[in-house]
């Protein structure tokens, strides 16, 4: 298989690169000066793309690669892959579900605690010597708060399981109600936001869910409410979020994703009720390694004409 050309648009994991290089002809697009020319030069040989949350395969790239057979994403979210075009052309798409569910759910709770209990700010308070001048102020209890989850799939359910251990009542919004679950269902995101203390975004990014967190939802969540986004940046109308936080219409936010990563609105840097993470939802040594193995496993299965491990299309 060493002759099979696999295109990787941006760096995502040195372990993954190593493993791909052992098996394929890995083309690292970010290392070449003229990307468009490079694609043209290799268009007859590239049979696979390895993408991630930031870079996938849009219609333009797919059109430039007539020999493309498979897009294997180093992520569970595949909003950067043009699924419609892939389906039409019979191009397979795989992702990395399940293996990162726990890490993302852990981070959602970690962000919630960091925001409500001001962990990052009070760490700064100690390091700057301010503790010598007086105690830190009161923060907000997490135990017992109502947690609202948008999207009750794998990640949403894992968030619910953890929040329940803190005696948090769970409420949710989903495309369809899930009667076998004992959580409170709300038929709209606005109603969910109005009835919870912490709102967690855990659904896939699609045309329907783009800007699902808009001004109305943010106002409904309110000056004591906290938004936690471990989904995708475009789930949130970012300028609306920023103005709500700056004006105090929203109580706080814990964000792992943004509309245009790695750019983060600078107005947020001054706010002590906001925690900002650089898209690290699945960012543990253990999980990235397992994700990489899954990408490799899917590619090998495809080229050996075996069933794909985790196909999307």
């Amino acid at each position, binding site marked *: 298989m060493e002759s099979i050309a696999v295109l990787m648009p941006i760096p995502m994991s040195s372990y993954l690169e190593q493993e791909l290089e052992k098996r394929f002809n890995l083309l690292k697009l970010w290392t070449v000066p003229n990307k468009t020319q490079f694609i043209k030069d290799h268009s007859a040989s590239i049979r696979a793309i390895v993408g991630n949350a930031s870079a996938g395969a849009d219609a333009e790239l797919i059109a430039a690669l007539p020999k493309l057979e498979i897009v294997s994403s180093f992520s569970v979210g595949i909003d950067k892959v043009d699924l419609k075009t892939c389906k039409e052309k019979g191009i397979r798409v795989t992702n990395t579900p399940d293996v990162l569910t726990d890490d993302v759910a852990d981070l959602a709770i970690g962000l919630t605690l960091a925001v409500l209990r001001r962990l990052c700010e009070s760490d700064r308070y100690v390091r700057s010597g301010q503790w010598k001048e007086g*105690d830190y102020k009161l923060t907000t209890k997490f135990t*017992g708060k109502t947690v609202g989850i948008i999207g009750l799939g794998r990640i949403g359910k894992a968030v619910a399981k953890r929040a329940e251990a803190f005696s948090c009542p769970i409420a949710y919004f989903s495309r369809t109600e899930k009667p076998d679950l004992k959580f409170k269902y709300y038929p709209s995101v606005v109603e969910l936001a109005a009835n919870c203390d912490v709102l967690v975004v855990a659904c896939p990014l699609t045309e329907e869910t783009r800007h699902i967190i808009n001004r109305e939802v943010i106002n409904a969540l309110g000056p004591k409410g906290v938004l936690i986004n471990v989904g995708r940046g475009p789930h949130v109308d970012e300028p609306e979020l920023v103005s709500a936080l700056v004006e105090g219409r929203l109580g706080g936010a814990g964000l792992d994703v943004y509309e245009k990563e790695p750019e983060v609105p600078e107005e947020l840097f001054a706010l002590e009720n906001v925690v900002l993470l650089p898209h690290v939802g699945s960012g543990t040594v253990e999980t990235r390694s397992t994700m990489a193995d899954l990408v490799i496993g899917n590619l090998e299965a495809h080229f050996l004409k075996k069933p794909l491990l985790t196909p999307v299309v």
Partner: protein
Amino acid sequence: MAQDNPTQPHQVLLLLPSHCFTALESKASHKFHFLKAWDSPLPQAQFLQSHATSSQVLLSFPKETPITAQLLQLLPSLKLLITISAGLDRVDLAACRARGVRIANSSPIFAGDVADMAVGLFLDVMRKISAANRYVRDGFWVSGGDFVLGSKVGGKRVGIVGLGHIGLQVAKRLEAFDCKILYNSRKEKPSVSYPFYSDVCELAANSDVLVICCALTAQTRHMINKKVLLALGREGVIVNVGRGAIIDEKEMVQCLVQGEIKGAGLDVFENEPQVPKELFELDNVVLSPHKAVLTADCFTDVTDLAMANLEAFFSNKPLLSEVVNY
């Protein structure tokens, strides 16, 4: 025994003011008579000698007022000490025992908030939340690329030191993160199924994380020493929401600086508010200014608990949070 004179409401002695008391006073001033030592121009000892000889109940905030044997000598009628804290390390327990003074603390109320803090610190250290937040705010995500990887929480072995109210709440929460719970306590607890280690060093050797939730006593002072930290090992993390002095702080700092342990989440220190400045250089440490119980809800709940304990005492009913076998 309760006072039986209906015209004089039940007397509760307080030594120093606190904002916790302000909330209690507004709720309870019609039910109890609060004798406030700080209102008097007399020095405390003199005030107590002339005004508090029949005081049966002392409501105390040990952070400011250590309850010493000398103090207890001035309160010959004292039957009950209610402390607004979980920790009793600043109370002379032997002197209380000798005088038959009952103690009610605030453990059940604090347990949730303290457990939340322990879990929050643990998640922060493992997933580098505070460090990553600094990375973004300092502009490094734009200029420096992806942040480093953290450590997965699921599947990790969590050794809880002290399985009381707080330790049990920590265990309950971390089980939901798929952590494996182990513990060390003064005595094994037959009501739980977690593996028990009578030796804290052995617990450390079998844990990926140690969470300190026990009381500070003569036995637990510096219980987490160099031997225990080395047993915890280079991949080990320590979280302390107990008291600073349970850990040999100097040794812990050395271990962190030299990489003998992987990280620490600390809400308490040996000599607060002094914090060893070597820790300020470290990204794998999360520091918190002893605020595990400092939530508004906690203050309301603690006030309600104090009221409930007072009502119970004066009507000869069982206390709600009596510390037995202290």
